[in-house]
Every structure is written in structure tokens, then in C-alpha cells.
């Protein structure tokens, strides 16, 4: 644990044995090797020196390191590296909005340090951060919403290499050797992110996107019966492997005759196609608030009509494009390399043995 000097007037220097990290930042490698360097860098929030840990979160990922000190991390209950909430994996702004938490961390230089030291002392005596504190009943609705918003599995794409800045300018000379990604960055609001804003939960474009998104009730998903009377399909998200086609059929056939049930396992979603509009409307009325099948909390919404044109012909067999987008937001794709046969060289015992001599 963090050891803090006794004298309250001295600037306390953190010394920790283990980082505070989220599952995604640690990566999918169970045999993780980390380096530790005491007081290696200044915390990017409070600017006090802290212990930096550095590790590679899996094959083809970039090396990651801790960016903020453990005190700052505990104050907000966030991961030391990605600054996302430890419990939900969501941006601070989203969590604070949902739970109605007030941001009272000071921003001025002197006050920041004083605050950090006070928090240090507080954590010393109570041993719990924000996350382990009890939440009132008023927050339970917010917690429900956060549960809906959070990802079901770790999102390892976040650990990929950064985009090659030289490639973006068009003059990367390294070619195939370049370890950075040769892709063009996303345009729009999301590219203007900043660590301090994300930490304090102010002006965070990702949080704005999530809060305005379909799952937070900001529109996007259809909850009222669509005007287009030809739509007789419902869109189910949040599927798990335990939910089979017969379970869905068994649940929905009572509302009306089913034309078909299409399950997209990859995206954890399904379409229930009713024969009649009345059946679909009745089903949505009963199940629109979400249903529970085989232990999975399923969310139900109206499917969207296919756009008319050449594209709709190509995708006749698959789900509607709008629905696919929804499904992509609902659940992350499996991590890269999770299906490869040899995941890590360090899983090879000879590899481990070859190094032991020098430790």
C-alpha cells in the first residue's frame, strides 16, 4: 500500500507495490510482466511524483504505464491508466452524472496539493476510496443505468498502438517496420480529448456521446412503435450464449405468430420477426422494458426499416444496417487474438526457463 511520510508539512511521495488498474488496461495475458519505477514521473493530475508501472497488455498492443498517482485514482475511483471508472469502465463524467456525484476536487496548484495530501491521510485511515463507499437508495436508479451502459467484456482495442503521426502527415518513412498504426484518425469531436478534463469529468466528448446515445435514453433507439407499418420486427440486445433460439421463440410466440427469429451471435443481438404488426406491438408493450431469459438481461426495441437502394439488396440476408450499428454499440467484438492458438511466447515453459538464469 501507499506509504506516506508522517510529517504533514512535507510533500508526501507515494511508494506503492501494486497499481490500481482496470481489466482492459491489464490485457488478456494472464502471465503479465510489469516493471516498477519509484517516483519516476509526475502525476498528470496533481503533479506529485508517483510510482510508475509499465507493462505490455498482450500481443500487438502498445506498452502502457500508469499516468496518475494512486491518491488521484482513489479520489475518483478510476483506473490509473485509462481514467475510466473501476466499477463500470465508464468515463468519470458519465458516472458522476448518473450517480449525481459532485466534483469538488480543487484545480489550483497549491490547493490541489493540499487536497491530495488530505486525501492521502484519509485513505491511510479508512482504506477505502470512493468506490467502496456505500451508495444511497437515490443512486440505485443511476447504478442501474450505468449497468446498462457498461461494456460486458473488456475492450482490448483500446490498448492498440497509437496512430502513426507521420503517416497522418503523409511522410512516414518506416514502412512495414513502423510499429504504429497506419490509419487515419477519426474526425469529429472525439479526437479532442484531454486527460485533465476526463479526470475531472468536465467537457468530455466520450461522455457526451455515451450520455446522448441510445442506451442512456438520449434517442437513437426506437421505443415508440415506428410510423412505418411494415415494420413487424423487434430488436433484442444483450444476448448471452446461454440464450438459445428456442428460448426466444418460447418467450415471444405468445404475443403472435412468429415469422422468424434471427440471432447474430457475434454482436450478441437478435431479431424477432412477427407475422403481424399487432403481434409485434403487443410483444413490445409487454417486453419493452427489458426481459430476463436464462439469467441474461435482454433489452428490447423496435427494429429499423432498411434503407431503400442498392445497399439494401446486398444486405438482404443480414440484419438491417441501423440495427447492426446499434448492436455494435451494445457489445464489443471479441478481443483481437483471443482465438489464436499460440497466444503468448511466455506460455511456453522453455521460454520462461531460458530467462530464469539471469534473475
Amino acid at each position: 500500500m501507499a506509504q506516506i511520510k508522517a510529517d504533514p508539512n512535507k510533500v508526501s511521495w507515494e511508494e506503492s507495490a501494486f497499481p490500481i488498474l482496470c481489466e482492459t488496461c491489464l490485457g488478456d495475458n494472464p502471465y503479465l510482466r510489469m516493471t516498477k519505477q519509484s517516483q519516476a514521473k509526475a502525476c498528470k493530475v496533481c503533479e506529485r511524483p508517483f510510482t510508475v508501472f509499465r507493462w505490455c497488455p498482450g500481443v500487438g498492443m502498445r506498452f502502457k504505464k500508469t499516468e496518475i498517482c494512486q491518491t488521484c485514482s482513489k479520489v475518483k475511483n478510476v483506473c490509473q491508466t485509462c481514467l475510466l471508472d473501476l466499477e463500470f469502465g465508464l468515463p468519470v463524467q458519465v458516472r458522476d452524472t448518473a450517480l449525481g456525484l459532485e466534483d469538488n476536487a480543487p484545480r489550483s496548484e497549491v490547493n490541489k496539493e493540499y487536497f491530495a495530501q488530505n486525501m492521502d491521510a484519509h485513505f491511510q485511515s479508512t482504506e477505502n476510496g470512493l468506490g467502496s463507499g456505500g451508495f444511497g437508495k437515490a443512486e440505485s436508479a443511476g447504478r442501474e443505468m450505468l449497468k446498462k451502459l457498461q461494456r460486458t467484456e473488456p475492450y482490448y482495442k483500446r490498448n492498440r498502438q497509437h496512430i502513426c503521426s507521420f503517416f497522418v502527415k503523409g511522410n512516414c518513412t518506416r514502412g512495414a517496420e513502423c510499429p504504429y498504426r497506419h490509419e487515419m484518425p477519426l474526425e469529429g469531436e472525439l479526437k479532442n480529448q484531454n486527460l485533465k478534463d476526463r479526470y475531472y469529468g468536465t467537457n468530455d466528448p466520450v461522455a457526451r456521446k455515451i450520455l446522448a446515445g441510445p442506451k442512456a435514453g438520449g434517442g437513437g433507439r426506437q421505443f415508440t412503435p415506428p410510423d412505418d407499418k411494415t415494420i413487424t420486427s423487434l430488436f433484442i440486445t444483450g444476448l448471452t450464449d446461454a440464450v438459445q433460439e428456442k428460448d426466444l421463440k418460447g418467450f415471444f410466440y405468445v404475443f403472435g405468430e412468429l415469422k422468424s427469429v434471427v440471432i447474430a451471435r457475434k454482436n450478441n443481438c437478435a431479431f424477432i420477426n412477427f407475422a403481424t404488426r399487432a403481434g409485434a406491438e403487443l410483444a413490445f408493450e409487454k417486453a419493452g422494458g427489458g426481459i430476463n431469459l436464462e439469467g441474461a438481461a435482454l433489452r428490447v426495441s423496435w427494429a429499423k426499416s432498411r434503407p431503400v437502394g442498392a445497399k439494401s439488396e446486398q444486405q438482404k440476408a443480414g440484419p438491417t444496417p441501423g440495427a447492426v450499428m446499434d448492436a455494435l454499440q451494445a457489445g464489443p467484438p471479441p478481443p483481437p487474438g483471443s482465438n489464436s492458438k499460440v497466444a503468448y511466447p511466455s506460455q511456453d515453459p522453455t521460454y520462461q526457463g531460458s530467462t530464469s538464469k539471469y534473475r
Partner: protein
Amino acid sequence: MPKIKSSRTKRAPEGFDDIEPTLREFQTKMKDAENDPHEGKRKIEALWPIFRLHHQRSRYVYELYYKREAISKELYEYLLKQGYADANLIAKWKKAGYEKVCCLRCIQPKDTNFGTTCVCRVPRDKLEDGKVIECIHCGCRGCSSGSGASAGSAASRKGKPAAKSDDA
């Protein structure tokens, strides 16, 4: 070649004249590499050409003596003594599994965080498919012994002087 030639300097052994032009060419190349400006290069790239030439020159001497047996033991020892080849590097090449080692830094596990060797020592089939690596010490793209012809050392892949293999 001795640094300073004087009347007391010993004459080079028999056969030195035959390989001298090649060694001289290496020498000028090394001079050029030493005087090359560093602008536009990454920090770690600066010494790569030096390591590459050093490897090439040692390899040339090594092959002359051990592979083609074109020079005498006397001349070989003279070349080592005069610094035309790196005896320590050649010593590694004689060991099984180290036949193509690019440089001595790449096999020094004490210099790394986890006591491992350089990434260029990893056999090609253990790497991700299609992944191109350049090690940070000497720019080697793979020098493990088992990788076959496709994975030669840095020197053999990157512009080996054409004249080298033919003389002597």
C-alpha cells in the same frame, strides 16, 4: 592495419595483399558511416550503420578463414589483432544457435528489463505472422539460427557490397 607504420612495424603475413582492397573498402565505408549526419534519423538509428559494417567486416574475415579456408591461420590472427574483425563476435558464431548473431549487444540479457535477449533473436515462426521487426540495438531484422534463408542477419539483408564474396 597497424595504426602507425614505422620501420619496426612487422610486415603483414602472406596473402594480406589479396584481401587488402576489400578491407580498405570496408574502412572507407566505416569512415563514411561515422561521418554521416544524424539529422532525420531516430536516436536509436544513429549507430545502426556502424554495427552493420562491423558485422559485415567480421563476417568477411570469419568466412575467409573458417568457411572458405582461403587465408592462413597466421594471417587470420594478424587480422584479429589489428582489429579487422571482432574476435568476440566470431567466437559467438562458432557456437550452435548463434551462427548468425548480428551483434554482441543483442545477446546480452543483462541489459534488458526481464533478462531476455533482443527481439531479433526470436525465431521467425515464433513471431506474429507477417510482422517486421527492427531491433533497437543494431537494426537487425532477425538473426536466429533456425529461421532459414529468409531470415539472414541485418548485414546479409541490407545491401551487402557485391564485391565482397568474390575476391580472395
